[in-house]
């Protein structure tokens, strides 16, 4: 019995070693696969952190610079003018909002919207391009910009949605 027990012990040991070896080799293979970069030819150093993304535009909700906040305040004022159909005042106010903070994509969007309302679409396209440059990373804003763009090329003002993308409405 003792001999049998030894025999089983040797076999178990061999099996354990084999399993461990198999597991190590399998796991190490997996590890290599997950670390592989998207671009095949980047060497090890580049893979480990030498590739980064450039600075991007902060979302309007994170606009914390003094001029950004002041600019958003003017945007709110301009929106009120749109609501009361005072488009000349709205136009001036959004233009001022842009002048205070030229990085405020929301102001470009609403200035484009004002031109849409006063039937001057040719002035709105470029502003939408700029709004897209500053806000296009955000799905909600991207959709609004595209919606307005399509309306500019044929839609009617009445069909435009005034729903603010979530999180960007109150400043």
């Amino acid at each position: 019995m003792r001999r049998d027990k030894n025999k089983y012990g040797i076999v178990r040991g061999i099996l354990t070693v084999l399993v461990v070896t198999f597991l190590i080799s399998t796991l190490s293979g997996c590890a290599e696969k997950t670390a592989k970069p998207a671009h095949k030819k980047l060497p090890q150093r580049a893979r480990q952190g030498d590739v980064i993304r450039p600075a991007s535009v902060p979302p309007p909700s994170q606009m914390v610079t003094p001029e950004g906040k002041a600019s958003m305040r003017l945007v709110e004022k301009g929106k009120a003018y749109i609501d009361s159909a005072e488009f000349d005042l709205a136009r001036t106010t959004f233009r001022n909002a842009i002048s205070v903070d030229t990085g405020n994509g929301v102001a470009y969007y609403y200035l484009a919207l004002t031109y849409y309302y006063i039937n001057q679409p040719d002035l709105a396209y470029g502003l939408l391009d700029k709004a897209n440059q500053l806000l296009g990373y955000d799905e909600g804003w991207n959709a609004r910009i595209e919606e307005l763009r399509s309306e500019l090329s044929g839609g009617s003002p009445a069909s435009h949605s005034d729903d603010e993308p979530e999180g960007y409405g109150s400043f």
Partner: protein
Amino acid sequence: MPRYRGYRSSYKKRRQNSEGKKSGLRRKIKRLWTLIKLLVLVAIIGGIALLYHFYRLDSMIADKFDKPLRWDLPSRVYSDADYLYPGLDIASRGIMAKLDRLGYRNTGDKINGPGDYSKSDDSLSIYLHDFKYPNEIFAGFPVRLSLQGSKIASIKNLERDDEVEVVRLEPEQISSIFNDKMEDRTIVTLKGVPQYLVEAIILIEDERFFDHGGVDPIGIVRAAIANLKSMRIAQGGSTLTQQLVKNYFLHSRKSFTRKINEMIIAYRIERTHTKAEILEAYLNEIYFGQRGASSVSGVAEASKLYFAKNVDQLTVGECALLAGMIKYPSRYNPITHPEQSRERRDFVLGRMREKNLIDEKQYKNALSEKIVTPKRKVRISIAPYFVDLVKRQLADFYPAEVLQTEGLRIFTTLDMFSQLSAEKAVIAELKTLEEKFSKILPQEHPDPLQACLIAMQPSTGYVRALVGGRDYGTSQFDRCTQAMRQPGSTFKPFVFLTAFDPSRSNKPFTPATLIDDSTFEVEAGGKLWRPKNYDKKEHGLVTLRRSLEKSYNIATAKLALEVGLENIVETARDAGITSDLIPVPSLALGSFEVSPMEMASAYTIFPNGGIRAQPISIIDVMTKDDAVLEKKTIRMRKEFDAAPVYLATGVMRGVMDNGTGAGARARGYNAIAAGKTGTTSNYRDAWFVGFTPKLLALSWVGYDDNADMKMSGGRAALPIWTNFMKKAEPQGSGDFTGPSDVILVKVDRITGGLLNRTCPEGIYEAFIEGTEPTKECDEIRTNTESFEGF
């Protein structure tokens, strides 16, 4: 017979005598008749002449006065408005100086009315002026800005006792466009003038105004007696109507004819106009002194000049002072002669009290009023080159006569703080250059070194500052918009932008692509053209980044040929360069001519991510009746993909940090910025164009006659740019934002290859995703022969 003969002869004599007497009488009568005829003729001619004179005067009155009253009103040019908000540093934006320029009065520890301000360590209180903006009438209210250091912590509306987030300071008047009369005036109605001012003026200038018919004989006698008594001209006998006539129709030279005409016209006007009409005309016409070369006419303009207030906001004391000033505007000027003006005010107040126009309390309060005037403006016209640009732009729609007489209000994009900083930078740095490099500059050159500085807001195209020369007084030629100069190396970024844009270039390039900076020749126009570097050397294989940072001509020319010259021309056109561009090899080195404004405008596509905003300097034009005539707008268009623009901008950042623009860093400008120097052949032009994400500025230095100044862009133009940016954009405006299809990969600075053990240090280089390098640095080194620095 003899007797008869005698009789006959005596008869003859008698008859002769009698006939002689008769003919003498006849002659006398004839002479008298002739004289009478002559006199009648003279009387008729005189009468006709007099009638004609009356007719002329009457026509003149009908033409000038019987119609709704018209004055030639100068057009006024305004800067852009400024905004105050929590977080703004009032010191770095020069807000205190701005308040002084806007005519606000420092009233010490409290503010009482419009135009007042008071400053303490932790707050700034301002009683904002009323202002008519296009489409909007702003009614001023008092605000208190709580300060933490020099930064605004919060803003409170003192009238409503609540917090406000943004406050607008009205635009500054930067210039008036006059005709040759040079009269500055703000029209006001009689109703708009305070009663105390009207009463004080009538009391002091023409007490019997309502009792005479234009000419006041009693007043004349009284004045004559008073003058005789004092043996000097102590009083004038002119009525308000006569004073109006003198100022409005005639001239100030003293003459008998003028006095007669004055009386005739005054009499005629009184017959056909009400006293109220005459008084209103007088209040708008009367002379109140000089502001530089222009005269200040009317109570409304005087009120602005001397008290920085609208006329309806004047106190009793200020009314008395203005009324008292009419006699001798310069002697009683409260800004230049405060003591004499106070005495005069007190005298007028005394008369007002005597006549019960004010009660005792009002009298005492007015006597104790401190006379507070705004600071005297040293400069009457600011930004003269910019104003000329505005005039030229308006000239197509508004003839000079309209601009000079119709009282238009022209709102512009000019930022006063940037403009003043730009003017100072140009003057200071040109002076330094001339002192520091006096031996290098041409000796005894007839004309001084000139410069131009333009600042633009890239995302709107707003021209924020423009200095077209060092001294407008000596040369009105605007070197920013009227000069055509070779741009030299400042054109190179358009070559690189074309190279980085796969849709524009014949071959794909990245900032890490290597190019051979070794001499070559190419045939152009039947001749061999061989570009040379500024340092007369060749540098072997260099990355595109390196070749732009160091402004290598050979590498750039070679790149241009590979990219395609026609493609580069198209890029320049899309960026907004409209001048003649010929696709020849030297195009890459800026061998054509552009205006600095064109160049500055074209560069805005870099900080604006490929979107081109049209330059704009006029925002709105309003009539004197507040109707908006002209509405200019921000016009922009996407011309380039954002990714290649970001790559080119990234390389230009290197110009500032490691290349020919590094002088800005040495001078202490550390904000994130990008730019490019430019120097043309024979050192005729020195350029620098640089930008942060939110402000772009271009500086140029050179001689008007294209003389060689022996200085590069980095030496001559960069200091002006740096001086300006340190004031206008001291902290910069954050980082340039990158599009989503761009990645930054760390590469070897020299080979552009990926890093490994042999090249452990590198820089993050921008690539359009999928175009990043695949070879490591040592692999590139072994396959190539000559690298700069090896």
